[in-house]
């Protein structure tokens, strides 16, 4: 279990957890910092102040109750659908790769890609506005032509770690994949 100070492409600190279950299987978990209570309070206060200002002019209490309702529903939707808590990559030699992201409300979405469909795991460069960012991705084989790449599945899309973190994950993955 290792835990160095990694950052994502925007400079926010993230943490990487590598677990090697056996020589055939290892798991990499990238955790993003949680929702900060300060930000939540600032947003809530802004929305409610605005609602109170509107109420002051219109004298309609429905504005206040709808503001409360909207804040609550918005927060619930945010933690259930938007805020990612950690993303993990489980590599099992000769079986496949499992990519899962877990949200702040506890919901987990998982995808498993079989080894027969995987061509390789690589680090790709992408130009995004004024930056060049690196991302780890899985190249999938075309069923009819084994040399062609049918699609690219990017990994760690919400946490977006930097190159040093990606290189670590890449090296361990290649060790396992090249063995079988």
């Amino acid at each position, binding site marked *: 279990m290792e835990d160095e100070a990694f950052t994502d492409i925007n400079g926010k600190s993230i943490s990487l957890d590598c677990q090697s*279950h056996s*020589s*055939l*299987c290892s798991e990499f978990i990238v955790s993003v910092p949680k929702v900060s209570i300060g930000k939540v309070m600032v947003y809530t206060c802004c929305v409610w102040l605005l609602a109170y200002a509107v109420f002051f002019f219109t004298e309609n209490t429905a504005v206040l109750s709808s503001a409360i309702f909207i804040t609550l529903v918005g927060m619930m939707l945010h933690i259930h659908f938007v805020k990612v808590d950690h993303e993990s990559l489980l590599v*099992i030699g*000769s*079986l496949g790769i499992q990519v899962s992201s877990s949200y702040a409300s506890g919901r987990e979405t*998982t995808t*498993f890609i079989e080894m027969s469909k995987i061509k390789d795991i690589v680090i790709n460069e992408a130009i995004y506005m004024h930056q060049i960012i690196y991302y780890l991705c899985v190249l999938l084989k075309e069923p009819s032509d084994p040399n062609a790449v049918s699609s690219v599945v990017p990994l760690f899309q919400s946490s977006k770690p930097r190159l040093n973190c990606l290189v670590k994950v890449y090296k361990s993955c290649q060790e396992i994949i090249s063995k079988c």
Partner: protein
Amino acid sequence: MVLKIFFPQCCNRADSGLLVGRWISSQDSAVVLAVIHYPFIPGHVKQYIQQVSAEQTSVSAQVCIRDTFSPRLCLSCIVMTFESQKEQEEEEEEKVIFVHYEQRKVMLSQLHPIENGVPDPITAPLSELRQMFQTVANSQPLFFLDRYDDGPLKSTHWQTEGREASIIVELLKQACIPLCMLIGWLLSIWTWICNIRIFSLYPLRFLSSKLSTCVQLSYRTEYMRLLSSPKPAAGHTQFMRKANIVVSFLVDVALGMLLIWWLYRDNHITMLANTLVPAADHVAKELDELLQWLMGAPAGLKMNRALDQVLGRFFLYHIHLWISYIHLMSPFIEGILWYGGLSACLGLTFALSLLSDMVALLTFHIYCFYVYGARLYCLKIYGLSSLWRLFRGKKWNVLRQRVDSCSYDMDQLFIGTLLFTVLLFLLPTTALYYLVFTLLRLLVVLFQGVLHLSVDFINSFPLFAMSLRITRPYRLAEGVKFRVLCEEPGTALHLLMEINPLKCSAVVQTYRTPTYSCYPKDSWAALVKKLFVGELIYPWRHKTTKTD
């Protein structure tokens, strides 16, 4: 060389015995299906396995009895002795992966995307997971032996504690055949009625293709025909399609009954009938006022007096005719509503289609106005564009489909310019009438569109598949999930395989019943262009029903 063993969770605590399963040589994996306990007679085991594999059609099984386990076997089925897990692991520790799976769930689940037909094993080999799922699903005869059987063999698998069955499913299976026969008989009577000669005359045929109630009836008949065949469903897709049709039909009828219950109590029908004629009167009065406004100076624009009066009087006469028609019909409206409401017992979709047809009939005059206005406007626009070309000394070359220059005679130019100015100055009047009636027509089309969309939704939404996804999510599998079970160094890797259920949006997409859905024929840009030029728009196009 990594060996993968798929081991059922129910056999974890079984006593020692022979493992029966299938060896998938292309993937170096073995799927264990059951454990046969000591004491047994090898002859009996061989006989039993041959008997079981003879009934399977897709999984071939050959028996081989070995004392030690070796991964280099190339037979398609192995039977190996299995004293204890530890002993085996000491032989090849880092090269074995144990995947624990829950046998009942894997047997009942269907992996998506569904591959119909038999794929060619050379060009498109089945993936490992698919082969594993198919092995378990096809091994049903192996799971019939439970521990209360007095046979020579004792085995452990998911049905060891007793065979699982559901009374409701068995009752439904028994009730299926007489129900299918009843539906078939009713359908034959209905088809005989439909094929009576008098209904094949041209006007009735055209009318029945335009009325949405008749379209809905024919759609329902077709799907009832699909249901009435007594053969059981061939394959998962067919079964889900039939189940979805049955469930949506039942829900439709239930909603229709609810509507009938609401409509026929407390004199709702009389209330509706009493508000209908005054509402129609009110609409006619509003249209009247609108036309009077257009005939004056609408929004400060100055209209061409003569044309204005002609068009305005023409439309006013139409409205007068329509109002007298409504007043003629008013004593019968309550009766029509009463009998029309009964159609809801066939289903809510029929009530909605009937409503849509009634709205279309009642607003027929708006449709007429729209057509007149559009045709007039369209003619004017074409005339204007052609005369504008003449004004500039150009001509449309039909052969080359382009604009060419042309030298006109003096009198041609004179007449052309005169006509051009006349048409140009009459343009605002026609354009205004066209705009007003197009907006009215679009309003009616919008309302009808909402009704058609809801009918389409009730028809095509796969309720059975969605409820299966919610109550038994393992039945519809998108893939699998793995979880690492134990991490002691020196032992083999143990993983737990769980089923990853299909996403709800994918369920709707895969199992949607194809309907005659109305969808917009043109994109927004094309629609706006057509409106601008004055072409008649038919915004909804009926797709013909696709039959699989």
